[in-house]
């Protein structure tokens, strides 16, 4: 089982390694834009909880960026592999379990999400942000990448065209990017919207990353909720992979 997980991961790692330089360079673009626009530009005139706005949004940018990277790394490639390149068949024809395939793909998405987060952390320090790096922060980041890699896999198995995939992105990921405690605290929103946003995983990723990086303490509740999302989405991903046959 572990050998098969590693094999599925190995394939994605070979592909990533081949263009690691270009990959890292491309991952720098959107964080730099966020940091310039919201950190240097808009952020100079805003303080949050007596701290700078830049310090407030860095965990949010890391959360939304790792969400997008992990989701698309798995979602787009598995969807293309299922519908267009048909390379998913190579795994379906091999004597490996759907669980091994799902775990291998999700881990590959996590690897991409973590690498892109390292890029942002380095950039954030370069922009003068202050935050603590610790085990809780890394764990929250890992769980966030896992949640959205698994969601990407579920979407890839369910969406039947490239357009449907991009619609999923527009209706699910884009609103989360802006609303889930990334750029502002959802407590400022009307109660119903606040309650709704509290149900979403990215909100808890933002909370966990912000709390651990500002105080160093354990964001227990947020980590627990992310953990539940991981279990549910991995289960759903395995189920959908099992059902992918005609």
């Amino acid at each position, binding site marked *: 089982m572990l050998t*098969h997980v590693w*094999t599925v991961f190995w*394939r994605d790692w070979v*592909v990533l390694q081949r263009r690691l330089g270009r990959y890292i360079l491309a991952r720098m673009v959107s964080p730099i834009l966020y940091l310039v626009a919201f950190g240097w530009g808009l952020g100079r005139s805003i303080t949050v909880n007596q701290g700078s706005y830049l310090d407030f949004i860095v965990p949010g940018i890391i959360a939304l960026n790792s969400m997008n990277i992990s989701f698309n790394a798995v979602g787009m490639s598995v969807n293309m592999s299922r519908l267009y*390149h048909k390379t998913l068949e*190579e795994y*379906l*024809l091999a*004597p490996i379990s759907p669980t091994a395939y799902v775990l291998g793909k999700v881990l590959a998405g996590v690897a991409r999400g973590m690498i892109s987060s390292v890029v942002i952390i380095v950039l954030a320090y370069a922009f003068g942000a202050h935050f603590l790096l610790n085990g809780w922060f890394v764990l929250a980041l890992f769980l966030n990448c896992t949640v959205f890699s698994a969601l990407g896999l579920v979407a890839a198995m369910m969406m039947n065209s490239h357009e449907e995939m991009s619609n999923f992105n527009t209706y699910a990921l884009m609103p989360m990017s802006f609303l889930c405690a990334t750029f502002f605290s959802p407590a400022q929103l009307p109660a119903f919207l606040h309650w709704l946003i509290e149900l979403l995983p990215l909100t808890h990723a933002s909370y966990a990353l912000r709390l651990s990086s500002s105080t160093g303490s354990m964001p227990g509740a947020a980590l627990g909720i992310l953990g539940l999302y991981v279990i549910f989405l991995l289960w759903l991903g395995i189920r959908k992979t099992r059902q992918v046959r005609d």
Partner: protein
Amino acid sequence: MIEIAGLVKKFGDRTAVDQLDLSIPKGELFGLLGPNGAGKTTTIRVLTMLAQPTEGSITIGGWKLPGNEQQIKTIIGVVPQHVNLDIELTARENLELHGRLHCIPAAERHKRIEELLDFVELNERSGDMVQTFSGGMKRRLMIARALLHRPKVLFLDEPTVGLDPQVRRRLWELVRRLAGEGLTVLLTTHYIEEAENLCQRVAIMYKGKLIALDSPAKLCRNLGEYVVEWHDGESLNSRFFTDRTEAADFVGVLTTAAAIRRSNLEDVFVEFTGRKVVE
């Protein structure tokens, strides 16, 4: 080696495969012949577990389906109709991935990859990305990949579709060599001459049903070894005869120009399905 009984595959109301019964012994090179949409690819997809049967029983290498999917996957090799190589990997990496998925130990895997690259004559391009390959090279690489884990049954779905005649003949040679080594081969094709050249027995499928099953020679013999063709106004008529003298006598009484030739699998096909095979 392959036993199929009462196989039915439905997609909604449409029946793609209808009560198919087949028995293919070990080492046979067997052809599934039929026009587009006859149910050949669906049959292969069900046999290779990429599609679930609606009814019927399947046994491959003594293992029954459903229930023994993982065991069957270790003894079958599949070359699909479409190219499903990983274009983000090199030829060697595609084989490496397959070998790893089948848990072949590293030393044996590397040796086997070299052997097969040699077998399909792709050693010199093994480090190149697959997307730079021609159609024939991709097809050969897919055959190498399907053979890597030493399968006992090889499924080839339209193995030569879209290939040059030279490449097609080279692939036929390759398939014959494999069958000569004891591998059971089930291939689908809608190229009549491919089935005639390669297969010991062929099954003709039409609209999901099996309508004929025998060796190409016997199918021709049953129909009549000689065929007379003549034009009657707009249409081309044909009639089958068991020997050449009878055919010649018939031509003698015709008032229009006629040709006598040996019957072939295409005649059998047209006779059974009532239409010419496309391509």
